């Protein structure tokens, strides 16, 4: 069995200890998309396990960093190390034939829907709320005006919080840092204060997205009968408010 098959077999056993490893440090978009769809079921059946969702965050971040956003045109990242056979020389051909066109906003939308569905079905799991924060932040990052930056956000403490820092893999080809396999490892510390300053200068997250999130929180709070769920919803609201300050 190759490594992927072994990983898959491990995942299907009851309680894997670690997320599956990709066989390459620079997986192709197709592999990333495949992994995203094939790990969905596992994540939904292990709603208190951070590793499944952390992996999905890693996949989405990798997809974002593989795609250079330039105005409204999506181009493939030339640093990708996929063998040449997969990459036709003509970029338009690449977009339409060999590599799947990645609709990042749509993917993130789908992930939000996935998150909503899980939060509604399985109330009271912090993991799901953590995941939602990551996705919201990725959306904001994508919609935002800083596609080439490294950004780091320390979310507001949630009560009894165990929320790890939200850190993004460098996007775009001009950063010195190589793409990390484990996307949540710390970025260089010296970048921190510079980035927090940059973050404070950024425009507020798009208000429509924020408004929808607040409505979601309202809906959860009005229908939930689980104390933990209410606590997480309120903490999420507080975090969203910090994001726009």
């Amino acid at each position, binding site marked *: 069995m190759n490594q992927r098959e072994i990983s898959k077999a491990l995942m299907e056993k009851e309680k894997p*200890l670690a997320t599956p490893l990709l066989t390459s440090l620079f997986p192709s978009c197709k592999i990333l998309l495949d992994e995203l769809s094939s790990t969905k079921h596992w994540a939904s059946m*292990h709603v*208190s396990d951070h590793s499944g969702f952390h992996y999905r965050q890693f996949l989405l971040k990798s997809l974002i960093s593989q795609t250079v956003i330039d105005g409204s045109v999506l181009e493939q990242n030339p640093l990708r190390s996929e063998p040449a056979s997969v990459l036709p020389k003509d970029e338009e051909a690449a977009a339409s034939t060999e590599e799947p066109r990645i609709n990042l906003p749509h993917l993130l939308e789908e992930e939000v829907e996935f998150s909503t569905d899980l939060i509604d079905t399985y109330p009271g799991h912090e993991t799901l709320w953590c995941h939602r924060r990551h996705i919201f932040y990725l959306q904001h990052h994508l919609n935002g005006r800083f596609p080439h930056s490294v950004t780091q956000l320390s979310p507001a403490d949630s009560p009894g919080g165990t929320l790890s820092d939200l850190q993004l893999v460098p996007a775009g080809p001009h950063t010195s840092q190589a793409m990390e396999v484990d996307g949540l490892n710390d970025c260089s510390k010296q970048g921190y204060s510079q980035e927090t300053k940059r973050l404070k200068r950024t425009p507020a997250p798009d208000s429509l997205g924020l408004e929808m999130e607040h409505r979601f929180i309202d809906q959860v709070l009005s229908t939930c009968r689980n*104390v933990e769920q209410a606590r997480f919803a309120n903490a999420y609201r507080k975090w969203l408010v910090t994001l726009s300050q």
Partner: protein
Amino acid sequence: MKLYSLSVLYKGEPKAVLLKAAYDVSSFSFFQRSSVQEFMTFTSQLIVERSAKGSRASVKEQEYLCHVYVRNDSLAGVVIADSEYPSRVAFTLLEKVLDEFSKQVDKVEWPVGSPATIHYAALDGHLSRYQNPREADPMSKVQAELDETKIILHNTMESLLERGEKLDDLVSKSEVLGTQSKAFYKTVSTGPLLRAPLQRAVEPARPLCPLH
């Protein structure tokens, strides 16, 4: 997200009678399985004995949540699940199973029945199907019938016991547990009722909170 056992019992006085059970112990190591199964039977019986007729409860024991429903006619069901499994679906399952059971098995058989004598074959299928709560019961979150505020929450098995009663004593006196299981129970210093399967990167265990 896992279901480990599903049992139907009769709440007799003073003891609960096991009528039928289905188990999924595949996640436990081979040599633990029969002990685990015995402990789950022991736990199910104990919970039914200590729960009032016409009540529903969730009892937390380490990584496990035991959901019990005792009907007014003394027919009872216990499902042992992990902490991810949504309790709403667990109670829907219990309701469904007891309803079906009471239609298939005559009332006179309940007080004196045993898994060997009772004819009810659907339990394994239910346990297997309900491993995926959303497939088995897609409408569950919409159901308003179950009044969740009435479900009693116990944070430990101990809280079910009478004052002065010890779980250790109940274990040694139990007819359900074999000698090996009892010996195994004694070797674990803190005496947990069920050994948790392999740990993973889960959320910290929280005590059960009453609903508002």
